[in-house]
């Protein structure tokens, strides 16, 4: 377990001015673990993710990442008529390994095509990225995140814009990646039902880490403390919880 650890966050604290955005967040993630982060809007989920992927500098506490990271950001850049192909967008994920002053090799383009197949958007490779539908675009973003063959996959609301059918196949794909590639996955989501279904561990965040347990151990009280500012979400999740666990 210790050896398989891909992410270790210790006492992460972040303030903007005098406002706490994150306070004393500690947890770790291993390979083969699928963790879901839930919490109301403004809870600091994206901030936590940004700190982990290195887009945030002035936090206190420590973050240790072992291995390569794939990252699917919340609301990724999307311009309808930008002349860039789907394949070129995926290849962006290979840039770090490939380095400057080079071109992508044939085998790298093959990798790109394999990724398109994995994420179920083969056949769209030559399309302009902006012409993809919302759900197709999220799959493209996933393909790019997977390009570097990461040990740790970080997803910030990847299901945004994906339809219900699409969602469950999206999560099945994530579970498959987790099992086959032994990836550690950290996913922020507002789709609490799916999170309970797909994830091994659940973290409720609202500035602090309110709970961090395996998916079948979580209690409605813990959810309530995390979601106190977002009653609607809480009620929906409780309903789901009661349906699933017949409390």
């Amino acid at each position, binding site marked *: 377990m210790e050896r398989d650890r891909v992410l270790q966050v210790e006492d992460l604290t972040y303030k903007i001015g005098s406002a706490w955005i994150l306070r004393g967040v500690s947890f770790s993630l291993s390979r083969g673990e699928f963790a879901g982060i839930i919490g109301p809007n403004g809870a600091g989920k994206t901030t936590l993710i940004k700190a982990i992927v290195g887009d945030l500098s002035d936090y206190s506490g420590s973050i240790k990442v072992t291995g390569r990271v794939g990252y699917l950001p919340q609301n990724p*850049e999307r311009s309808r008529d*930008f*002349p860039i192909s789907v394949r070129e967008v995926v290849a*962006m994920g290979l840039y*770090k390994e490939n380095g400057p002053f080079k071109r992508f090799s044939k085998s790298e383009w093959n990798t790109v095509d394999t990724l398109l197949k994995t994420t179920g958007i083969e056949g769209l490779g030559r399309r302009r990225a902006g012409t993809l539908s919302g759900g197709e675009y999220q799959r493209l973003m996933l393909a790019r995140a997977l390009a570097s063959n990461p040990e740790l996959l970080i997803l910030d609301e990847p299901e945004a814009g994906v339809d219900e059918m699409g969602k469950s196949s999206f999560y099945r794909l994530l579970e498959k990646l987790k099992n086959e590639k032994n990836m550690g996955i950290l996913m922020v989501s507002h789709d609490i039902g799916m999170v309970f279904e797909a994830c091994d561990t659940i973290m409720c965040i609202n500035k602090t880490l309110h709970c961090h347990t395996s998916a079948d151990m979580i209690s409605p009280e813990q959810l309530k403390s995390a979601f106190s500012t977002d009653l609607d979400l809480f009620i929906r999740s409780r309903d789901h919880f009661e349906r699933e666990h017949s409390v």
Partner: protein
Amino acid sequence: MITQFIGDVLSYEFLRNAMIAAILVSTLTGVFSSVVVLRKIEFIGDGAAHATFGGIAFGLLLGANYIVMAALTAVVFAVAVSYFTRRNRLSESSVIGMLLPLSMSLGVIALSFVRGYTPDVMGLFFGNILLVTAADVWLLAGANLGAIIFFSLFFREILYYAYDEKMARHYGVPVAFVHYGTLIGISLSVVSSVKIAGIILVTAFLIIPAVSARLLARSLRSMISISVVLGVTASVLGMFFSYVLNMPPGPVIVVLLFVQFLAILSVKKLLGSKEND
């Protein structure tokens, strides 16, 4: 008429210089215009051009070579824009919008100290091909070479920077380098184009070809090629019309660039938008 024009271009040096310069201006600006339009920094060309005016004025005041001074101010301008936007999270348009009149004002103040000089304001603003010298042509050729090297060495980097700067940085693309490189390149291309296009018109060269090309292009590579072709066509035709009809070439070229845009837009509309091909 056409043979007469070609004959004149071949026999008169000033006309030949002007012709070559016009072509080189349109290739140079055509290359950069794609990035300008895709990155939505259309205003930068305007800004750099007006900064150039400040530089020229100070050059006259200090008795320094004004092209060197103009290049210097344009680069300072580009760096200042990057500095203010990156460090202080101001939008590029706001910063350019502030620095543009500032450099203009400094230029006008500087000019007021230059005794006995009545600047060729029209020439400066709208371009005057009669002023083009062989040295200008060489300058433009050098700038073109620089742009070609920059774009061929860093094509992927420029593409990813223009598409999604944040994620490009995440994936290790040297975005700061590309950003400064692009802004400095744009500024220098503006400086070297000022005699042909003029301070006010050079913006058209930096925007219109790429806007037209974007309507047709499927990739950044084709967008750049199309804007270069459109720019060169408009320049050559513009020089021809302005010569036979005795009109100022800069404005004629700009009108032609816009006509191209309208033509491409209407053809595209007529054929029906095949967006999802």
